């Protein structure tokens, strides 16, 4: 059996005395969508930063196609096909929307002309193409989040890490984001989605991993997660309980 696309094994990250992640393990197949949920401070973003190379894990291993990548710097991880967005948006504010995406495309195609063409295609895919020549700093927050996704997609990733791309969006914008993630999966790109917006993540996730206080407390399909009493107690509350069978 071939190795899964992403395998996280007993990942632990400590900051001094603070344990942000402890023995976190999960895996993800190619083209799957994994929802990563949990209360604030549960360590979701820390997992992300470890996966993307921003924090070297204290212990544990991260494998991409079976290859250990824990501790590699972000630029190497990106080259291996992992792209991310940021919880607090980090677009290149003084550059245009198109130029932002071109920087992503340049990971695989250094020639400016080719990068521009690919960036235009990526912008058309996420529906930001009519804003191409706007300065990125002038976009709305929803648009900036979408720009980050577009920029990440332009690196032609196999695995996309989406950090709360739906937070702070209106109902309509959440629906657009859901639709976008669905289309990203249709391209064959796997996603790990950190999200608080349950109506955004529940319908699209193949599997959910629930973190609490740095540990995995549940791992399974969304329906099972939504009716898991441990998860409901820790995070979801009664509102999202799935009706019993």
């Amino acid at each position, binding site marked *: 059996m071939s190795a899964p696309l992403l395998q996280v094994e007993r990942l632990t990250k400590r900051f001094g005395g603070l344990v942000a992640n402890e023995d976190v393990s999960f895996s993800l197949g190619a083209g799957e969508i994994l929802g990563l949920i949990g209360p604030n401070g549960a360590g979701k973003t820390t997992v992300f930063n470890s996966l*993307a*190379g*921003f924090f070297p894990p204290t212990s544990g291993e991260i494998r991409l196609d079976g290859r250990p990548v824990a501790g590699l*710097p*972000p*630029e190497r991880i*990106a*080259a291996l096909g992992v*792209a*991310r967005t*940021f919880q607090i948006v*980090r*677009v*290149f*504010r*003084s*550059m*245009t929307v198109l*130029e932002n995406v*071109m*920087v*992503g495309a*340049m*990971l695989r195609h*250094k*020639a*400016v002309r080719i*990068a521009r063409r690919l960036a235009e295609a990526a912008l058309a895919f996420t529906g930001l193409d009519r804003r191409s*020549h*706007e*300065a*990125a*700093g*002038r976009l709305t927050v929803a648009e900036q989040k979408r720009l*980050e996704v577009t*920029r*990440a997609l332009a*690196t032609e990733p196999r695995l996309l890490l989406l950090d709360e791309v739906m937070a702070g969006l209106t109902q309509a914008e959440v629906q657009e984001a859901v639709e976008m993630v669905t289309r990203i999966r249709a391209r064959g790109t796997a996603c790990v989605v950190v999200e608080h917006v349950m109506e955004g993540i529940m319908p699209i996730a193949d599997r959910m991993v629930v973190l609490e206080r740095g540990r995995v407390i549940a791992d399974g399909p969304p329906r099972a997660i939504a009716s898991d009493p441990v998860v409901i107690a820790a995070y979801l509350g009664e509102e999202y309980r799935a009706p019993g069978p």
Partner: protein
Amino acid sequence: MSRRTGLAVGLASLLGAALFPLLVTRPTWQNTAILMLMTAQLGVAWNILGGYAGQVSLGHAAFFGTGAYVSTLLSMRLGVSPWAGMLAGGAVAAALSAVIGWPCFRLKGHYFAMATIAVGEIVQALVNGWEALGGAVGFSLPFTESGLWGFVWGRSKLPYHYIALGLLLLTLSVNWLVTRSHVGYYLRAIKDEPDAARSLGVSLGRYKQIAMMLSSALAAMGGTLYAQKELFIDPGSTLSTSLSIKMALVAILGGVGTLTGPIVGAVVLTAIEEASRIGFGGTGRGTDLIVYGLLIVVIAVYQPSGIMGWVARRWPAPGPAPTGPPAAGLAPEAKPS
């Protein structure tokens, strides 16, 4: 300004710079024009690292001095033509910048700037105490071979004017090519959001280093030109921190991260300096520092994007593409996020 207006202004400036010494024959004016060209060249060179990549160096005199000393020593000791010395100086400065960049690029923002001040001071102290490098006394360059091979002209300043103009055009071309390649995009990305750039596969160290090597090599070439024009170099004139500050200041005054901003800044700053020198005469030693200090405060408070930022707002470019806010100012940390 539209692209066409910009091009027209650029061509007119080039024509003016080319014709100036033919039309204006007073030596002081001619000398001022050469100073402007040389200062502009240094500002444009500084801008590759400080403006586009946002890595503010306040130690660039170390590279300028490297160019001046390498070509001078090669010519005095080995009889090498200063033209070859200019290239050698550029290469040595680029190598030196790699040694300096490796530790300094681990520092961010203001800490990088502070480290470069230290590097500049160290190089200056080193040369001051190093007899083989002329120590604090410096070198008077021998006035032997006048003409093109020797890179020395006694009677007329004209050749220096055109060499300075040529070097400025070369530096602008390098700068332009950088902005047109993926390197230029990466540098701007690094300046705006270094972490986001990394997440897209940009190696911060590699691209900052490319910018620093180009920037320092070009500054060193300016140093060779200075040595050949003045025929005297010492640590005070080629390695001082005030020279480093001046390189940064012309770019900041004109507009960081713009192609032509440092030229505008150099013209304005040189004019102010020369005027104060004429006005105060020998008693005016140090007035240049007062002017620098004043300008830094004024720019920081009123016009962080420099003169070109003001121009861009006063005469915005027409066309379907709305321009963004003017090129972000000096410190990436200073802008609202």
